């Protein structure tokens, strides 16, 4: 009897394969490289009946013909790693398509179990599936599950262990020996089996998904609806983040006084107290207070929309524009990922097979603002909006300004893609096929936990480990003086002419340069720079911030151009490193120059127009 076994999880996209994977492994997950291709596969483990099963989640594919990197990875794993058991996750509501993949897997190995998932959905559609008949037709164990409700998981584990131990010996029924397993032959067989085990599937164009799609995919209402939804998400983020942000700021301020008192009691000299408290502590707590609340709201909302099935619809609605720009349809999806984190967006460009279009997606990804830049947009948007239109209610005005910034960033992405595909990266666009899966109600609890663990904490942690040393470095630059002037001021003065020409100033440019490690720290650096010249102030809220900025000669144009430059400048260090890894060293410079050129040009034009 084996004490350990290797299990592979295969299946079409959108069959709930990752729900099965999460349910089987819990939080015991990691990613790793496996034989064959360089695609990273998720792995985890579970113990059942004295057997430790290591389980690998293969990429969701429609086939194993190796027409895409995912298929190649899945096929290579099945052939090279020789798993003890392959679990094929099938969609009970879309049996033909699932069986097509299952039959291909059975041609590679007989050590298989079919997991017939989404049974709850099938029951709702009254499909009346005959599980034992399906088992008979395929010759392998079939386990009905509804993973989202936890149904059938123990039976699935039983079957996995029994097949691995050899207690159950599947005897798959393949196509007749003289038949080539072509797509036509496999689909014909899948169709035949599906007819024997299930009632007629639901008519297309009926039901909840089709009804909602009539609105969401409508040529007239699709894009306005998406914008309204985005505005709603932004409004919730801005309004919802305000109060917790304020609470955190106050708490950290009390913490600062305690820390100061503690250091004083320990007899710490000012040269130790000041960099630690005014540099490191303030830099760190600013980032946490400003970033944590909006992220804790934005990421879960984004994940809910993602799990609901909204992202492919966004890609569908925007595709007409991407076609005109000569870009790949999936670029809309990598762009959407960029709103979370540009480094993640660059990695996500792997879903684009064609090298040329993948490069376009990578080079233009930084034109959309990541979560590190959202707070800048929100803060500056609020300040600019209250200055330009004092009558409007604060949060509404900032929502409109941020929304305008986002629309501008999408337009810049399209324009830059058009430019690249027309000049540097000429060629014919490759094909694009997009599945529009049925809408599914997300599991809110799981989404909250996973988006907090995977996204919020990960991004915050990165910001924190960067913010602490940067806060320290900036404090030193702001407080070490050469000929009575702080180093920071020297640098800022040297950059000032360029800054002024762009409607900004030297300190702002310097803050963006020093903020290279992470965009989150641009505003704290800027404040430290401004405040090093004056008496140190407490920045308790936005009005205090506004007062500091006005005292340093800011007009609404400065706030506007600050936003434009925050949208369009070089990518952060993490993104640059990611671009180097994903596209090669020679594309790092173009990737940095492209958004910077857009920002410089726009700021310069705005400055000229306003000064006229």
């Amino acid at each position, binding site marked *: 009897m084996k004490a350990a076994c290797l299990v592979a999880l295969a299946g079409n996209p959108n069959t709930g394969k990752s729900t099965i994977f999460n349910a089987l492994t819990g939080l015991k997950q990691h990613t790793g490289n496996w034989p064959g291709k360089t695609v990273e596969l998720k792995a985890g483990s579970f113990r059942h009946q004295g057997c430790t099963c290591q389980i690998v989640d293969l990429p969701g594919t429609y086939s194993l013909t190796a*027409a895409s990197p995912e298929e190649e990875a899945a096929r290579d794993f099945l052939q090279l790693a020789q798993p003890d058991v392959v679990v094929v996750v099938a969609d009970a509501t879309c049996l033909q398509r699932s069986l097509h993949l299952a039959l291909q897997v059975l041609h590679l190995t007989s050590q298989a179990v079919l997991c017939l998932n989404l049974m709850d959905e099938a029951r709702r559609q009254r499909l009346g599936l005959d599980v034992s008949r399906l088992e008979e037709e395929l010759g392998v164990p079939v386990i009905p599950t509804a993973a989202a409700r936890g149904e059938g998981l123990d039976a699935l584990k039983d079957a996995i262990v029994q097949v691995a131990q050899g207690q159950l010996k599947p005897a798959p029924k393949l196509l007749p020996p003289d038949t080539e397993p072509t797509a*036509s032959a496999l689909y014909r067989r899948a169709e035949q089996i599906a007819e024997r085990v299930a009632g007629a599937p639901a008519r297309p*164009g009926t039901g909840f998904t*089709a009804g909602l799609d009539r609105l969401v995919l409508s040529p007239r209402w699709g894009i306005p609806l998406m914008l309204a939804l985005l505005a709603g998400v932004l409004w919730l983020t801005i309004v919802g983040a305000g109060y917790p942000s304020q609470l955190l700021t106050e708490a950290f301020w009390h913490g600062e006084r305690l820390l100061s008192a503690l250091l004083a009691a320990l007899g710490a000299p000012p040269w130790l107290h000041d960099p630690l408290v005014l540099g490191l502590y303030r830099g760190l707590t600013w980032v946490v207070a400003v970033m944590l609340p909006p992220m804790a709201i934005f990421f879960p909302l984004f994940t809910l929309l993602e799990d609901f099935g909204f992202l492919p619809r966004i890609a569908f609605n925007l595709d007409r524009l991407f076609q005109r720009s000569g870009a790949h349809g999936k670029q809309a999806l990598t762009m959407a990922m960029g709103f979370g984190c540009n480094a993640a967006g660059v990695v996500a460009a792997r879903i684009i097979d064609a090298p040329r279009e993948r490069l376009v997606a990578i080079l233009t990804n930084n034109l959309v603002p990541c979560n590190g830049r959202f707070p800048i947009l929100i803060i500056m948007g609020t300040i600019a909006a209250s200055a330009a239109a004092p009558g409007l209610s604060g949060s509404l005005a900032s929502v409109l300004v941020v929304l305008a910034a986002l629309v501008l960033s999408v337009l810049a992405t399209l324009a830059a893609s058009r430019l690249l595909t027309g000049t540097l990266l000429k060629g014919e666009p490759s094909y694009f096929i997009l*599945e*529009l899966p049925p809408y599914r109600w997300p599991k809110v609890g799981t989404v909250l936990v996973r988006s907090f663990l995977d996204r919020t904490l990960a991004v915050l942690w990165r910001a924190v480990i960067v913010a602490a040393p940067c806060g320290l470095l900036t404090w030193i630059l702001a407080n070490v003086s050469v000929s009575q002037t702080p180093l920071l001021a020297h640098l800022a003065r040297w950059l000032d002419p360029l800054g002024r020409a762009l409607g900004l100033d030297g300190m702002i440019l310097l803050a963006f340069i020093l903020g290279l490690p992470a965009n989150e720290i641009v505003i704290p650096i800027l404040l430290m720079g401004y405040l090093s010249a004056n008496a140190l102030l407490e920045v308790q809220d936005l009005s205090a911030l506004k007062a500091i900025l006005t005292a340093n000669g800011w007009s609404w144009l400065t706030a506007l151009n600050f936003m434009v430059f925050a949208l369009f400048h070089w990518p952060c260090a993490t993104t640059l490193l990611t671009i180097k890894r994903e596209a090669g060293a020679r594309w790092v410079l173009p990737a940095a120059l492209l958004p910077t050129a857009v920002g410089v040009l726009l700021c310069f034009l705005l400055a000229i127009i306003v000064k006229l």
Partner: protein
Amino acid sequence: MTLADLTRGQWGLVQGLSAQGTLRQRLLDLGLVPGTPVQALFAAKGGSPTAYYVRGSVFALRGDTASQVLVEPKEEAL
């Protein structure tokens, strides 16, 4: 006639593919093999992309791809 010529809501039977290479393989893998019933469901402005019902799922194809799938149009639902 090709998939791209189907009007919204219209059904057709796949007759074959004029696509070659990996696109051909991809379309076959999605189930667009001869004899498969398909229906045009939703279209963007200008008709590209259009979403089609194929074997229990919905896939959006751009016009240049859809025009490489040969279909026989049907008046009634399949």
